[in-house]
């Protein structure tokens, strides 16, 4: 059974198309990262699935149950965990009180004490939410999202405003969820986060999934690789090598972007047998991502 199945989801606000036919699936124990620049439609996508916003068209199945309109059954909500981007609790209630309240909503969820522990806030149990640090607040919200011991979890930009350490702790918790067979949908615009956590990445851009696949597949999708070396060859010769798209020099170190790295390297070695420090690398996911969203822009401009 698929934890999440979305087909042809569309949503417009007036003339502004936010989701233009999004398809997505997710199985148990899988982490899906929805990656995209601000305004790509990530939050709208999650809000639509959860029934906070009414979709214009498309099918939504959650935990095998077809969703109609914006109503989500109580039975379904007992199995969902959600952490929204704008999430703040009542500033005047303590950590324990918030956990106690939230825990009472669920049939088989964690107890208040377990939630406090899950958030790692045992030492701040009696501290009011308003007096917690940004990272502590996020941890509490994350713990509350797990109150249900959910089968499907939505995390909308969960590490926003967290410091490096807090972010790594949260990543660890997401990995644990995955091991427990929980399906996780995570939106982020931190590429490192997607690379660290995702089984699959869907790149959302202007309401369309422009690419989807494992982090490795996404990197392979981009056409070029980066070649670094020290060589005595001139810029003209180097640019003349097969596959080379661009060149940059930093003192002796030459960086080539090649659309066909194997051929470039072969020709390079034939032309200069004194090449040193040769290194061929795939582009970082960040560059892959930029390329995907930019080429999408270019296509649109050409179409227009």
């Amino acid at each position, binding site marked *: 059974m698929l934890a999440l199945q979305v087909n042809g989801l569309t949503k417009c606000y007036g003339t502004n198309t936010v989701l233009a036919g999004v398809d997505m699936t997710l199985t148990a124990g899988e982490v899906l990262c929805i990656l995209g620049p601000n305004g790509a439609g990530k939050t709208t996508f999650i809000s639509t699935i959860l029934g906070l916003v009414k979709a214009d068209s498309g099918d939504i199945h959650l935990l095998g149950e077809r969703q109609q309109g914006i109503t989500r059954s109580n039975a379904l909500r007992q199995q969902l965990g959600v952490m929204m981007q704008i999430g703040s609790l*009542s500033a005047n209630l303590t950590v324990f009180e918030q956990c106690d309240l939230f825990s009472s*909503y669920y049939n088989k969820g964690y107890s208040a004490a377990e939630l406090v522990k899950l958030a790692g806030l045992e030492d701040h149990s009696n501290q009011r939410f308003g007096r917690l640090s940004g990272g502590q607040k996020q941890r509490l919200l994350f713990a509350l999202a797990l109150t249900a011991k959910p089968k499907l979890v939505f995390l909308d930009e969960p590490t926003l405003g967290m410091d490096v350490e807090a972010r790594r702790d949260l990543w660890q918790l997401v990995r644990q969820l995955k091991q427990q067979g929980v399906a996780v949908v995570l939106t982020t615009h931190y590429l490192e986060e997607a690379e660290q956590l995702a089984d699959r990445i869907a790149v959302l851009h202007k309401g369309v999934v422009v690419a989807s696949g494992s982090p490795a597949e996404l990197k392979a999708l981009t056409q070029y690789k980066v070649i670094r070396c020290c060589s005595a060859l001139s810029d003209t010769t180097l640019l003349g090598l097969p596959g080379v798209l661009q060149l940059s020099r930093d003192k002796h170190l030459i960086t080539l972007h090649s659309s066909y790295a194997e051929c470039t390297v072969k020709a390079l070695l034939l032309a200069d047998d004194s090449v040193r420090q040769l290194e061929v690398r795939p582009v970082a996911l960040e560059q892959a991502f930029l390329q995907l969203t930019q080429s999408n822009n270019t296509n649109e401009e050409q179409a227009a």
Partner: protein
Amino acid sequence: MNTIIVYRKEAWYDFVSVWRTPGFVIPSLAFPTVFYLFFGVFLNTGAASTYMLVTYTCFGMMGPAMFNFAMNIASDRAHGWLTLKRLSPMPLGAYLLAKLNTALVFTLVIVVALFSIAALLADVRLVTEQWLLLALVFLLGTLPFALIGLILGLTLSDKAAPGVVNLLYLPMAFLSGLWLPITMLPQALQHAAWLWPSYHVSQIGLKVIGMDQGHALWLHLLILMATSSVLGILAIISFRRLT
């Protein structure tokens, strides 16, 4: 999930959360108390003290009912707390009843405070049934104001809500005869007073002590019930429009 426990916890924590906001609690309780002490006890005696007990209690009850709903719901919306609750299995009724409960607790505190001042300092003498009936009028009379607050809380931003509530609260109190006796207002304003729920609640209260304008009780009740129904429908519509 045990429904009764959810309702109870929701109510308790809503109250606790509001009670820990001195900026809300102190003005809510101080305004009617200070006004009544000043106008009803130090500047007036006898019948005027009794009359003002009703009007100032009504004034005191309206404030927290509207403010608590409007400001807290607007703030829960702005901070995403309401969204998280709506996505959880929490029954919506628990959330709304919790807020109503908090408003009723404030009404009760104000009733006890002003009634005590009246009995102890202003020498207001009523029979037990009158005290109890008055308390009941104000507790039930909290509902339309809670609904007004609910609608404002569901439609306004958290920044706008306090201002708009004040804009409604203070003129409505004045135009319903809660500061100056209604008979001292110009004829046109006395007619216009029929528009305000606070006029009807205060008239029913004044009827208990035999100082009302003499309109039929059922008329006041009917108007209050009709107003509350319309407000209730508007509240449901506002809720459906939330995203």
